[in-house]
């Protein structure tokens, strides 16, 4: 019964989406306010209906209703409850329901919180959002129904992939989708602006918070996925340039560029056409990612069961949405009023450089990801584009970006004094030189490691110096600086945090790659191995039983200078449905790095193959990502984002005229 309600809710949601996509748009174009007013209630209703559908699906998984095909295929009575629930979105059909739910969530968000938007813009945005919803709901209802029944109902399900039975991975899709789908708002804003024929700074002020929120969630999603790979996939790798990883990374790169170019639109009324294009591009990349994951055109460990039929529909949808919006862009963008000018050396110029480098990096990732397909289509030749390609091409493109990020925010608008900015950063330069020296003395490390340290320190200190500079720290009275600190818009703190976060990530990557210690051996009980100054004593292995697996668990006692640090117990788990073996590495973070142990095969006579690592500062990678996300949320809490157009009331207008306007630096 509940399942049928869920399906019906989806069908209704589709109907509502159709209405939301057409009626308000006609109302706005023809000047019929009652029709235009349909947008907001439609968006909220859509949220309600998709929530009901999603709830019904979750319910079916929670009670293990095996008369529902989706539950049969993706669940099992032996699975822990958390993973039963996560199983709802860990498959193609269920994840689509989540897709439309989040789409409706963001739409309803604009409907409810967008009171300060001009009604025409808001209505158009909601209409475009509705159009996207129509496509996905149509796909779900008619071609990927998660509520399909199976008669007779089997006694048990066929189980979920054991790799997905993991807290990190349970939450990875929701955050990813919040990010992917959140960019739909930026897209809708862009298309709405093209329809209206107008982009002004106010438009950017409204787009940024939504884009920033989506970006933050996507960062969490990508970070979670990477962190999961680190502790789950057995040898401590955390990024493989796998096509599906790249599919989530490309929107992130585009979204980052979008955030930065939108600043120029907001502050300087420039880069408008480019920003509109970026907004379309970012969401298009989200859709392309959806296509890649579900169609089977590319080889990946991540792909859902590939089905060319699904691929055809998604491609068709892609052609409609992306093709349509890009055609609209080609036709309408030229009529957008050009913005103000700026010198190459200026904050705008810095942001343009940011976009230039991010776009080049994006294009590179795109090229590497799609090249096997293109080559196969053209010549039938098969080639693998693996990590070696990306590492050699992506890193050199991002390096200048990291270098410039430190003093970008210090450049003035329109025309800046480069030498002045660099001079103000001499403290950062000095610290960087010092760090390089220390690195060279202690490790005589590879060139890339030294470069990484230099970049990371430069960016970290530079970001802090930039903040200090704004506060006139040490250059005037402390109380003065304090006053400035209190009045500084939160977005400034957000910027510092975000850029510092990137620096921490760079340092984490550099440290863990350059100075990792790896040790592979077969150990017998009682054996001891020394890795990076830690002593690992293998106590032995025993068989253990988990809720739905059998495992071999090894026990290691770790000491340093005779003092016991930890007991670590890695496992090798064998599942039965479906049959698979996974490695549960034992990870122990210490102050300087992670201790990482994976236990593998037995040699049949009491010895076990083991991999022991010391990975310096590797957790900084994800800590840095969290700092970036924190920066985003700090920025989002800035009251400027909640103040949109000036209030209509007279008293408020007078107040606005009298008070100093919230100018950013």
């Amino acid at each position, binding site marked *: 019964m509940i399942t049928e309600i869920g399906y019906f809710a989806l069908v209704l949601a589709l109907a509502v989406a159709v209405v939301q996509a057409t009626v308000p748009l006609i109302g706005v174009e023809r000047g019929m306010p009652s029709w235009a007013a349909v947008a907001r209630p439609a968006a909220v209703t859509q949220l309600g209906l998709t929530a009901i559908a999603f709830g019904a699906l979750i319910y079916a998984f929670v009670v293990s209703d095996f008369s529902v095909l989706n539950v049969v295929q993706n669940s099992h009575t032996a699975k822990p409850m958390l993973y039963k629930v996560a199983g709802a979105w860990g498959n193609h059909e269920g994840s689509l329901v989540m897709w439309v739910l989040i789409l409706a969530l963001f739409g309803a968000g604009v409907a409810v919180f967008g009171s300060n938007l001009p009604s025409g813009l808001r209505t158009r945005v909601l209409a475009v959002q509705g159009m996207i919803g129509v496509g996905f709901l149509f796909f779900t209802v008619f071609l990927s129904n998660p509520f399909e029944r199976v008669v007779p109902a089997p006694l048990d399900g066929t189980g979920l992939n054991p790799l997905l039975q993991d807290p990190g991975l349970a939450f990875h899709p929701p955050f990813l989708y919040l990010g992917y789908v959140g960019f739909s708002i930026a897209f809708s804003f862009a298309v709405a602006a093209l329809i209206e024929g107008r982009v002004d700074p106010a438009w950017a002020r409204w787009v940024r918070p939504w884009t920033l929120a989506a970006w933050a969630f996507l960062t969490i999603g990508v970070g979670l996925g990477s962190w999961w790979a680190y502790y789950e996939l057995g040898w401590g790798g955390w990024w493989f340039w796998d096509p599906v990883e790249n599919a989530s990374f490309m929107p992130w790169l585009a979204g980052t560029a979008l955030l930065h170019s939108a600043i120029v639109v907001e502050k300087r009324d420039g880069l408008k056409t480019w920003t509109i294009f970026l907004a379309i591009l970012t969401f298009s990349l989200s859709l392309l990612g959806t296509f890649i994951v579900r169609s089977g055109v590319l080889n990946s460990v991540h792909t859902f069961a590939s089905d060319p039929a699904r691929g055809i529909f998604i491609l068709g949808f892609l052609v409609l949405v992306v093709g349509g919006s890009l055609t609209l862009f080609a036709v309408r963008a*030229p009529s957008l009023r050009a913005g103000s000018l700026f010198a190459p050396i200026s904050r705008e110029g810095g942001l343009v450089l940011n976009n230039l480098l991010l776009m080049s990096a994006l294009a590179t990732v795109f090229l590497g990801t799609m090249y096997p397909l293109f080559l196969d289509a053209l010549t039938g030749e098969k080639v693998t584009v693996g990590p070696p390609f990306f590492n050699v091409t992506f890193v050199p493109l991002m390096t200048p970006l990291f270098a410039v990020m430190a003093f970008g925010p210090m450049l003035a608008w329109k025309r800046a004094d480069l030498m002045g900015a660099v001079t103000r950063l001499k403290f950062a330069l000095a610290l960087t030189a010092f760090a390089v020296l220390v690195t060279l003395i202690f490790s005589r490390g590879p060139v890339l490691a030294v470069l990484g340290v230099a970049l990371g320190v430069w960016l970290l200190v530079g970001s802090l110096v930039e903040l200090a500079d704004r506060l006139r720290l040490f250059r005037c009275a402390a109380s003065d600086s304090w006053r400035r600190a209190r009045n500084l818009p939160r977005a400034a703190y957000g910027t510092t945090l975000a850029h510092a976060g990137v620096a921490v990530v760079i340092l984490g990557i550099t440290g863990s790659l350059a100075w990792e210690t790896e040790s592979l051996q077969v150990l017998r009980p009682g054996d001891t191995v020394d890795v990076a100054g830690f002593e690992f004593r293998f106590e032995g292995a025993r068989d253990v039983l988990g809720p739905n697996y059998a495992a071999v668990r090894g026990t290691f006692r770790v000491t340093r200078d005779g003092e016991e640090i930890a007991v670590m117990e890695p496992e090798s788990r064998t599942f039965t449905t479906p049959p698979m073996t996974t490695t549960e590495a034992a990870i122990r973070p210490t102050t300087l790095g992670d201790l990482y142990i994976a236990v593998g095969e037995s040699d049949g006579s009491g010895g076990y193959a083991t991999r022991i690592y010391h990975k310096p500062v590797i957790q900084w990678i994800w800590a840095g990502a969290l700092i970036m996300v924190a920066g985003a949320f700090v920025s989002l809490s800035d009251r400027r984002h909640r103040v949109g157009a000036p209030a209509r009331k007279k008293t408020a207008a007078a107040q606005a005229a009298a008070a100093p306007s919230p100018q950013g630096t």
Partner: protein
Amino acid sequence: MQLRFFVPITAFAVLAAALAFGLTLNPREIPSALIGQTIPDFELTALKGRERGFGSADLRQGDVVLVNVFASWCRPCRQEHPLFMDLAQTGDIKIYGINYKDDPDAAAQWLATFGDPYRRVGADLDGRSSINWGVYGVPETFVVDGSGQILYKRVSVVTPKVMREEILPVIERARLAGQEVSR
């Protein structure tokens, strides 16, 4: 001036075309690197209960032959096996079998149960010879011409359609070409 705004949509059109075409391709199937080259040198021992295995010399006798890589533990091999049985019964072409990383007893049992279409079977116990053929899974089927040149490789199951539309035509063409050369 307006033209540059059409660059994105044009680029997308190209991409969409590539993706559409990509849907018809199979990224997991890799073509053989050995097409047009001679077979590797090898010598495989006999299967249990049979006198002789076979080697590369046997495949250079001047006839176009089929080489089928199979194993008793390979489920899809059972699917295509009847086709080879039928083909063997017509006597039209010689089929050689490479038994890939199999247990000798199990293999002999499998052939006894499902029939033996092979003129000769060689036991590749460690899979090394098969690797020299570029084999990466079972089943795989090769068409080899009279001089020992590999003309065609089929990865995974041979379906009636594949047999009809791909393998038999290749054999035909090879035979015609062989007749022309000898004339």
